[in-house]
C-alpha cells in the first residue's frame, strides 16, 4: 500500500549517500503491521546496492534492545524505540459502527465509515513514520550505523525470529521501576565535578518531566478538538435533512449552511490532525529521546560509581599489599570505560540539543503556517457564505 508522506518530521537528519534507509511500504494485517524496509547503500558490507526486507514491530524492538544491552554503546544516546502500533481504539470504533449500522441512515453510515477509515489511515501513517525515524536515526549515527545487528536487520531477508525474546517490551512496568531507580542514582549521586554533566543532569530531569506533561496535555486538547469537529459533522448532516424536507426559502438556507459546515468541519479536522503531527508527535518524540538521554547519564553515573569503587578497592589493596595488580587492572578498566563514556556522552548531549532545537523550530514554524493556512481557508468560506446568505434575504 503505497502513499506519500513527509519524511522524518521530528528530526533534522543529514541524509548520507553511503547509507539511506526508509520504509517504502507497509501492510496492515489483522493484528500486525508489516513494514518494508528499503536500503540504498554504497558501503562494501552489503551484498547489493539496493535491497528490501519485510520487518515487524518486534524486530525493531529487538534491534533497539540489542543496542541498549551493548556495553560498547554505553556512551551514546540510543535512538528511542518506536511505540507499538496501536489500532485497538480505531478497530473498536469501526466495529461499533458496524453494529450500529441499522440505527442510522445510509448517508450517515457512509460518512462515519469514511471518517473512521481516515482515522485508521492516519494512525497507520504515524506508526510508519515513527518506525522510519528510528531507522534513520540509527543510519545517521556514525557508530551505530556500522552495527552488525543493524546490517542483519536491513539485509537478512528471512524472519529474525525474535518474537518472544523481547523481554523489555513484555516487562514494561519493570522497566519503569528501573527508570525510577535510575533517576534516584542520578539525583542522589555525588555532585559531578564536571559542570557540564551536572548541568545536563539537572536540566534533563526537569525537562523530561515537563515534556511528559506537555505531551499528555496536548493529546487531551487535540482530542477535544476532534470531538468538536465530529459534532459539526453531525450538525451539517441534520441541517441537510432539514433542508431537503421542502423547497422553501428557509430550506434552501439550511442547505447552504449545511454545505458550509461540511467544509469548515473538514478544515477543523485537518487543524486537529496537523496539531497532532506537528505538536503532539514532536512532544512524544522528545519525551522518548529525553528518556534515552537520561539513560545515557544513568549509564555514565553507574560507570562513575564503578570507577570510584575501583579506586577505593585499589587503595585498600595497596594498604594491605594484597592483589594490587588485579586491583590496578580493574581500576584502569573502569577508568577507561568511564572516560570513554564521558567523552562520547558530551558530544551526544550537545548533538541532542542541536537536534532538539532544529526539530522544534521546524515543527513550530510548520504548525504556525498550517494554522494560518487553515484559518484563512475557514475565513474565506465563512465570508463567502455569509455574503451569499445576506444577499439572498
Amino acid at each position, binding site marked *: 500500500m503505497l502513499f506519500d508522506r513527509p519524511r522524518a518530521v521530528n528530526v533534522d537528519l543529514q541524509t548520507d549517500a553511503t547509507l539511506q534507509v526508509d520504509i517504502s511500504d507497509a501492510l496492515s494485517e489483522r493484528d500486525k503491521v508489516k513494514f518494508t524496509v528499503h536500503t540504498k547503500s554504497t558501503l562494501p558490507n552489503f551484498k547489493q546496492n539496493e535491497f528490501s526486507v519485510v520487518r515487524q514491530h518486534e524486530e525493531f524492538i529487538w534491534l533497539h534492545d540489542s543496542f541498549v544491552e551493548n556495553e560498547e554503546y554505553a556512551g551514546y544516546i540510543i535512538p528511542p524505540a518506536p511505540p507499538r502500533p496501536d489500532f485497538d481504539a480505531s478497530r473498536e470504533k469501526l466495529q461499533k459502527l458496524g453494529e450500529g449500522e441499522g440505527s442510522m441512515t445510509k448517508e450517515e453510515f457512509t460518512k462515519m465509515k469514511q471518517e473512521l477509515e481516515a482515522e485508521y489511515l492516519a494512525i497507520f501513517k504515524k506508526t510508519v513514520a515513527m518506525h522510519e525515524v528510528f531507522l534513520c536515526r540509527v543510519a545517521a549515527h556514525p557508530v551505530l550505523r556500522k552495527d552488525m545487528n543493524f546490517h542483519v536487520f536491513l539485509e537478512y531477508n528471512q524472519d529474525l525470529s525474535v518474537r518472544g525474546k523481547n523481554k523489555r517490551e513484555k516487562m514494561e512496568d519493570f522497566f519503569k521501576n528501573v527508570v525510577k531507580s535510575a533517576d534516584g542514582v542520578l539525583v542522589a549521586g555525588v555532585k559531578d565535578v564536571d559542570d557540564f554533566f551536572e548541568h545536563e543532569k539537572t*536540566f534533563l530531569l*526537569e*525537562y523530561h518531566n*515537563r*515534556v511528559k*506533561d*506537555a505531551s499528555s*496535555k*496536548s493529546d*487531551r*486538547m487535540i*482530542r*477535544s*478538538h476532534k*470531538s*468538536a469537529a465530529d*459534532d*459539526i459533522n*453531525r*450538525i451539517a448532516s*441534520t*441541517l441537510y*435533512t*432539514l433542508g431537503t*424536507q*421542502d423547497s*422553501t*426559502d*428557509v430550506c434552501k*438556507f*439550511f442547505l447552504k*449552511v449545511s454545505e*458550509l459546515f461540511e467544509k*469548515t468541519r473538514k478544515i477543523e479536522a485537518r487543524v486537529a490532525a496537523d496539531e497532532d503531527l506537528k505538536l503532539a508527535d514532536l512532544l512524544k518524540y522528545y519525551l522518548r529521546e529525553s528518556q534515552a538521554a537520561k539513560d545515557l547519564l544513568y549509564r555514565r553515573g553507574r560507570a562513575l560509581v564503578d570507577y570510584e569503587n575501583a579506586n577505593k578497592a585499589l587503595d585498600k589493596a595497596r594498604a594491605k599489599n594484597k592483589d594490587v595488580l588485579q586491583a590496578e587492572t580493574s581500576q584502569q578498566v573502569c577508568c577507561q570505560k568511564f572516560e570513554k563514556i564521558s567523552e562520547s556522552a558530551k558530544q551526544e548531549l550537545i548533538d541532542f*540539543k542541536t537536534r*532538539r*532545537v532544529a526539530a*522544534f*523550530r521546524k515543527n*513550530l*514554524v510548520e*504548525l*504556525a*503556517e498550517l*494554522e*494560518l493556512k487553515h*484559518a*484563512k481557508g*475557514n*475565513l474565506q468560506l*465563512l*465570508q463567502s*457564505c*455569509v455574503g451569499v*446568505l*445576506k444577499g439572498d*434575504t
Partner: protein
Amino acid sequence: MQLEEEVEDKFELNISITNPEKVGDGMNAYMAYKVSTQTTLPMFRSKTFTVRRRFSDFLGLYEKLSDKHTLNGYIVPPPPEKSIMGMTKVKVGKEDNSSAEFVERRRAALERYLQRVVFHPSLLQDPDVREFLERDDVSSACVCALSGAGFLKMINRATDSLSKMTIKMNESDVWFEEKLQEVEAEDQQLRKLHIMVDSLVGHRKELSVNTGGFAKSVAMLGSSEDNTALSRALSQLAEVEDKMEQLHQEQAASDSFCFAELLADYIRLLGSVRASFDQRMKTWQRWQDAQNMLQKKRETEAKLLWANKPDKLQQAKDDITEWEAKVTQYERDFDRVSATVRKEVLRFEKEKARDFKKQIIKYLESLLQSQQQLIKYWEAFLPEAKAIA
C-alpha cells in the same frame, strides 16, 4: 399580511429586558428584571416606560393569553422553561460562571418571548399584554398560581400532544394534514439538532479548558528549555494557546446563545403550533358531536310522533331548534378556527424563516470573527518561531 406590514412600518415598538437583580434572600429569593418599552403606538400611555417583572409574572402572562386565544386557533408563543436547579443556585447565592450564564440565558429568553408576543398583531391588542408592559405592579395572584405542578398542568393543557388524541378527523382540507406532518418532522429534526449543538458547546468548553492546561504546560516547558530563542518561542506559544483558550470559551458561548437557544425556542414554539392544530380538531369534534346530538333529537321527535305523545312533542321540537342552532354555530366556529390556524401557520413560517436567517447569520459572523482573531495570533507567533536558532 399586507396590512400587518404596513402597521409595522408606521408604528414602532421596542422591548428590552435588562438589569437582572436578585431580590430577597434564601429560598424565597427571586430575580427581578427591568422591562423597558419604547414605542410610538398610541394605545400606550407614554412613549418610554419601564416596569420590573419576575419570571413567574411572565408565566402568568402566558397563562392568561393561552386561556383566551389558544381555543381560537392562535399560536401563542410559550415562555422559557422553569428551571429548578438553575434558580436554586441563584437563590442560594452561588456566584459562579454557571449561575451567571443561567441568568443571562433566561434574561435573553424572556426578551425574545416578549418580543414575539408583541410582534403578534392580535396578541398585541390584548389588554393583558399592555398591562404587563405598563402597570407598575402586576397582581400577585398569578405569582402563587404557578407552583411546579401548576405550571406543568398549564403547559400540558395547552400543548396536548396530538398522539394522545383519539379524534379521527375526516380531513376535507389536505393542507392541514400535510402541514401537521411537516411540523412533526421538523420538530424531530430540531430536537436532534439541539442535542448535537449542545454536544458541540460541551466539547468546545472542554477544548477551552484543555487548551488552557496545555498553555500552562508549554510555559513550564519553555522555562526549562536552555536554548534562549527556543525558550522564548515556547513562552510565546504558551501565550497564543492562552488566547486560544479565551477564544474557544467565547465561541462556546456563541454556539450556545446564538444557535442552541434559537433551536430551543423553536422546539417550544412548534409545541404551540401543534396546540393550535389540536384546537382545530377539538372544534371539529364539537361540531360532529352536535350533529350527532341533532340526529338523536330528530329521532326522538319521530318516535314521539309515532307514539302520539303530544305533550312531549313540543320539548322535542324545542330541542331540535336548539341543536340546529348549535350545529350552525359550531360549524362556523370550525371554519373560523381553521382559517385562523391557517393564517397563523403562514405567519409563523414567515417569522421562523426570518428568525433563523437572522440568528444563523449572526452565528456565522461570530465564527468569522473567531477566525480573524486566530489569524492575528498565529501571524504574531510565526516570526518568533522562525527566530529560533
